[in-house]
């Protein structure tokens, strides 16, 4: 493995995350305003792009398209960022390993604000090795990597990755299968395989961190796809979803199956969780999405799409916005509150969903006021305005840009 990266100076900034209420909300504290008079705005986003053909992850500065590092790994990766954005997991299932990359962007929380540091991105020495590592899920400060080839789960905290002699704990959950494990407090919610390892998964159950089962299996046939929003996990099933809600105090999480059979043909198998509001957006079959509101009397709102979905993403800052790319090359802005597509624009050439699921197709990442879309056939990242859905610029990328993650934020500095 090699790592090349341009040298960048350490830059400290103060970021007002969500504490500083805007407009009239901020007028209450004159002293706060004085504190911010000396500060200068800063926005820094960095993109990480997995190549479809070459075994590399490329880091690119969103602002100017500058090279921020190229990291050679064993295989085309699936990319999953940590919740903090400080670490990127490059999952290489067939190669039996997960590489870890320090994104170079870190926030230090101070309650009403956070400090951001921007340094070089770097490949970390820590790797998580196994038979076929797959899903990476973070919850309650613990990261869980499920190994499809063994049925084991590797558990660690983000801070562990930079400690000398990184040796994460591994616990068995049962037989090998294409599964998942979601950390919730002192427990894990894990998928339960069928007796026949080739048959679809049958459900979910809670286990403790020693691997002991807690409570009964909750049916969730073919469980696939999960997301977290406001400490609640949602899991996709062939006949509905399962919501996992944290228990009170030291109690285990509570699992509840909610059927989608009344919604017509289709099921949820991919989910994203709202960051600033508690909701989930899932697919519903190939050519519809569904907004899921836990706790609501009418939790599902299915929104048909004009053609099949290629990828979708939530806007972490503008909580009402979701962006959906369809195979006709159109990007759609979904208003989550209204449950309506309110704007559409052509952003790429058509990419058919026929063929292999792993064929190179565009993927989306939201970075502030921009949507970064990989366009593998064109060898580009297209930077699209979230306000207008118009293309602002393109960033040429070597190879075949495919998976993409954006990390960063905006704020103020001295």
């Amino acid at each position, binding site marked *: 493995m090699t790592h090349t990266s341009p040298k960048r100076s350490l830059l400290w900034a103060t970021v007002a995350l969500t504490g500083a209420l805007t407009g*009239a909300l901020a007028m*209450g504290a004159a002293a706060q305003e*004085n504190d911010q008079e000396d500060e200068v705005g800063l926005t820094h986003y960095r993109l990480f792009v997995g190549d479809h053909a070459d075994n590399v992850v490329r880091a690119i500065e969103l602002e100017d398209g500058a090279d921020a590092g190229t990291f050679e790994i064993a295989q085309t990766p699936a990319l999953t960022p940590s919740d903090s954005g400080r670490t990127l997991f490059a999952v290489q299932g067939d190669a039996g390993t997960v590489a870890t990359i320090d994104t170079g962007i870190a926030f230090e929380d101070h309650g009403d604000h956070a400090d951001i540091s921007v340094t070089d991105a770097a490949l970390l020495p820590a790797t998580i090795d196994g038979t076929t590592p797959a899903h990476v899920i973070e919850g309650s400060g613990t990261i869980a990597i499920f190994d499809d080839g063994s049925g084991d789960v590797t558990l660690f905290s983000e801070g562990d990755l930079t400690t000398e002699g990184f040796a994460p704990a591994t616990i068995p959950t049962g037989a090998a299968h294409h599964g998942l494990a979601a950390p919730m407090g002192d427990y894990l919610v894990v998928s339960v395989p069928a007796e026949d390892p080739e048959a679809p998964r049958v459900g979910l159950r809670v286990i403790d961190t020693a691997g002991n089962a807690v409570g009964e299996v909750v049916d969730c046939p073919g469980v696939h796809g999960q997301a977290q929003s406001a400490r609640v996990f949602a899991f996709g099933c062939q006949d509905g979803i399962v919501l996992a809600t944290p228990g009170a105090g030291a109690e285990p999480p509570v699992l509840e199956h909610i059927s989608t059979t009344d919604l017509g043909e289709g099921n949820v198998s991919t989910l994203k969780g709202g960051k600033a509001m508690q909701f989930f957006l899932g697919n519903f079959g190939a050519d519809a999405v569904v907004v899921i509101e836990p706790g609501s009397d009418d939790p599902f709102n299915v929104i048909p799409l004009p053609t099949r979905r290629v990828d979708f993403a939530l806007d972490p800052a503008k909580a009402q916005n979701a962006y959906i790319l369809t195979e006709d090359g159109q990007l759609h802005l979904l208003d989550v509150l209204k449950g309506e597509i309110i704007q559409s624009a052509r952003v790429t050439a058509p990419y058919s969903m026929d063929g292999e699921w792993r064929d190179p197709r565009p993927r989306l990442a939201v970075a502030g006021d921009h949507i970064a879309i990989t366009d593998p056939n064109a060898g580009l990242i297209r930077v699209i305005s979230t306000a207008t859905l118009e293309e602002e610029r393109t960033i040429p990328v070597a190879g075949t840009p495919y998976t993409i993650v954006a990390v960063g934020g905006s704020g103020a500095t001295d």
Partner: protein
Amino acid sequence: MNRRNFLALTTALVALPHLALAQDRLTVVTSFSVLNDMVSQVGGDRIDVATLVDADEDAHMYQPTPADARSLSDANVVVVNGLGFEGWMDRLIEASGFAGSVIVAVDGIATRDMPEMEGHAGHDHGAFDPHGWQSLANARIYVANIAQGLSAADPAGAEVYAANADAYLAQIDATEAELQDLLAEVPQDRRTVVTSHDAFGYLGDAYGLTFLAPQGLSTESEASAADVATLITQIRAEDIAAVFLENVTDSRLVQQIAAETGATVGGTLYSDALSGPDGPAATYLEMMRHNVATLAAALKP
């Protein structure tokens, strides 16, 4: 239809919306239960008020829902505490498209600085303790801000809001006298207590009490093992008599500290949320009475 009738019908149609507006009550959304009670007291029958974070729920950890955003989009007024207490509110307001007025209840109080936040990394971030309602003197300012904000949004009701505020302020004054009496018998060397999170600084300043908390200003923060160890040492060294649970926080850490130090668990304090209607802190003033009575009972020799 002749011309006269047509004109009469047109006039009636134009007048109807104004009539409806005059009869409509102001729709107010508050961020959490303490504000909801204060706003109900001041707004009286002229407003419909609803809260986002309900009784016994933790505003620090709250995550708004799409339904919350929709309720905001229909509201005339939103009342927030401010000082970063509702870190989720600015994004919720943006998401909802809310176009009414915002009342910041904490506006104008003498804010408490948080010493550990000063001079950080060479610059002062000006972090303030947001739990202003834990002092009745601050509550007077909250009430004035609420009355002023409601009057601005509904000028026709200004006199009603002013009268309601005056009546409520009289209740606050009476409660203040009760609290002073309750604490009068607590000696000076028994006025340090432990709670889960740092929510009672303004109460401590008002009545000469010192509150120690392993968890810091927000229930979102995690207490470090070193902080807990330091606190346990301090409890033993200063012979701190009582620790208190909170209605919105996990009690395990404070229970553990009590077990290790032998300190008495003095009861449950209501910090960032009222109790339900059948609980001991169903209104703001009941909450203040309950908290101080609970403290006094545990601290009196």
